[in-house]
């Protein structure tokens, strides 16, 4: 009985982490999936959200900035705003860069952000990080606190999903697709490409900040290692590409699936004899790379491929007086 209860609790932890990663993949989906912005600096915006959450909610502690003790929901909002502001500044400078140049710039920015958090010890306690971060519902008894926190994460994922689905099928989303597929044509159709790219970048980054705020609560401890590029940038990319770029359902599926692979494979490898158990820890990292390779080769569109929204019935060439406005206007 205890064993099954244990499996149940582990399942909850998988879903919680998968849910938090879903917030990140949905954010990346806005940037990479919808608009084709190669943001390789997810970890940076994630870290901004996590640190804003931590600093605003922790009780006073001599080794870092704190003692504001904001209510958790308000701090989560501030984390999103914080990430959005940083993203706006970054985007103002480098959003005009083409795909790979943007990737290089954002990798650099994420690293700068991480080093700032690592070195501004008066605010962040440097490499030691911030501990005892308040977590939503932690006052409830087990397992209700875990369930309630998971519920909150899933409700947030659902809300983001619905909003992004609406955005995707709206004219706004179709402009994004146009920019991704052919920027010059989108510009020729009179769209302000730069402004749309900036919007997409800021919205996506705000979601990454929210992911960071959730992660900070869940872990109750953050340090610069949390925004390690392996697990905070590249794993998120693998999740989105595996699940299906530009498909919001795919983003969530990819996050849940890849996190399960990432986490649960260890249950198998820890069964191996000691000398192999240590080595096999590296095999798990290799496995993620292998999955990415396999998916890119065999199924580049991901598990759930993109579905373009159908044009509105009124615009489907019906003999109506408005037939001459064939293209959607933003």
């Amino acid at each position, binding site marked *: 009985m*205890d*064993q099954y209860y*244990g*499996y149940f*609790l*582990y399942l909850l*932890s998988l879903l919680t*982490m998968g849910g938090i990663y879903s917030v990140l993949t949905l954010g990346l989906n806005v940037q990479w999936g919808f608009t084709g912005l190669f943001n390789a600096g997810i970890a940076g915006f994630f870290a901004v959200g996590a640190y804003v959450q931590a600093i605003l909610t922790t009780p006073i502690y001599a*080794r870092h900035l704190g003692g504001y003790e904001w209510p958790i929901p308000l701090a989560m909002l501030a984390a999103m705003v914080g990430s959005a502001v940083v993203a706006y500044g970054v985007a103002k400078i480098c959003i005009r860069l083409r795909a790979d140049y943007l990737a290089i710039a954002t990798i650099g920015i994420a690293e700068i952000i991480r080093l700032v958090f*690592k*070195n501004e*010890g008066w605010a962040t306690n*440097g*490499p*030691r*990080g911030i*501990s*005892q971060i308040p*977590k939503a519902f932690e006052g409830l008894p*087990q397992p209700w*606190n875990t369930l309630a926190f998971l519920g909150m994460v899933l409700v947030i994922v659902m809300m983001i999903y619905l909003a992004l689905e609406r955005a995707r099928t709206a004219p706004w989303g179709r402009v994004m697709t146009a920019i991704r597929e052919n920027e010059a044509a989108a510009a020729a159709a009179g769209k302000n490409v730069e402004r749309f790219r900036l919007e997409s970048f800021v919205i996506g980054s705000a979601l990454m900040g929210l992911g960071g705020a959730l*992660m900070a609560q*869940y*872990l*109750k*401890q*953050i*340090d610069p*290692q*949390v925004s*390690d590029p392996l*697990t905070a940038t590249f794993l998120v990319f693998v999740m989105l590409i595996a699940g299906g770029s530009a498909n919001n359902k795919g983003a969530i599926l990819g996050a849940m699936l890849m996190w399960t692979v990432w*986490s649960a494979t*260890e*249950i*198998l490898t*820890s*069964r*191996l004899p*000691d000398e192999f*158990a*240590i080595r096999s*820890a*590296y095999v*798990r*990292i290799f496995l993620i790379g292998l999955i990415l390779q396999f998916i890119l080769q065999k199924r580049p569109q991901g598990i759930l491929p993109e579905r373009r929204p159908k044009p509105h019935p009124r615009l489907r060439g019906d003999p109506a007086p408005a037939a001459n406005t064939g293209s959607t206007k933003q």
Partner: protein
Amino acid sequence: MKHLMTVAAVAALAPIIFGAPAMAGNIKVGSVAGVTGPIAELVAPIVAGRNLAAKHINAQGGLLDGDTLVLVLADSQCDPKAGVDAGNKVVNVEQVVAIVGASCSGATNGMVQSVTIPAGIPSVSDSATAPSITDLKDNGLVFRTAPSDAYQGAALAKLAWDAGYRKLAVTYANDDYNAGIAEVFVANFEGLGGAVTANQVHEPNKASYRAEITTLSGGGAEGLALFAYYGGSGITIIRNALETGAFGKFMAADGMFDISVIEQIGAENLRGNLMITQSASDPENNSYQLFADAYRSTGMDPAAPYASHGYDATFLIALAIEKAGAADPAKIAAALPEVANAPGEIIRPGEWEKAKAVIAAGKDVNYEGASGSVDFDAAGDVPGFYSVNTVNDDGKFEMEFLR
């Protein structure tokens, strides 16, 4: 054919997946360590220390009624995300009764706060040294055999002061461990009346530190206090400092304690010029020797940082299980300070059979570990005991225990 191979593969994997864990007579203890990640090379000897303890226990009668102590390894990657995930796995899926680990302070902090304290599972870390772990509201569940940094920084500061240094430059690698020791060192050295002429952080793994050395050498310091891992930046900094003639005297903490420092810099350059503190146990108390001999016989170097702490953490959990008389987490947590602290018959590393007999007779035991006397205080911390290591005429480290 393909089908047949699948069946064969499943059949081969099945005992690995389903066989081992559910067998009766196993008591599982989590062994959470940063197997991959930034300190992977330091973690392997620590895990070997833990495994050695399990081997001793199982070879000398096992736990309780001959149950086998099984250590379940999980990777905390030195990252709170992975630490929480590893904790969840060992606690919920593996149903461990206690945990040794995690390795890094950040991963330990995350794991105990979000998993083990709510679940009521005791944990004994063998290498988390951050002072913030002392401050946790842990319901008496979080212990460590690794002394808080606060002690080593203070020990080295006093040592430097007693050796006649009054003005020192300080540099530390930008990681949680070295930054913590450096902070305590500076506070203590200044508290004794010494002056810190320059205090600079550096990023590990750079090819050259000449720029940092130039900054540090202004101010007329008599020596350089260096807090780094030998492989990350420590050796390079000493080499650069000697090449530029900026510093000739060095003092360091246990991240620098490795024979490769002497091999790469040269004993003639370091003799009389280098002192390294290291967490150690009193050599007159022969616990360390017992551990060292056994550990060396497995082909490992017993001087590896925190290997002895890993042994002690595992041995203590086993003693606590024996003392509690049941694989019950709450009872184990309550028994941990009892088996570690006086009063009681003294038990040393490897003496499991004796410990079992003493506990069976209903008497108290007091474990005197390889890493020190491991007496837990109210916060679950151990006091630090240190040695100072200098380079001798044979080009080896010579250890002197600090009293």
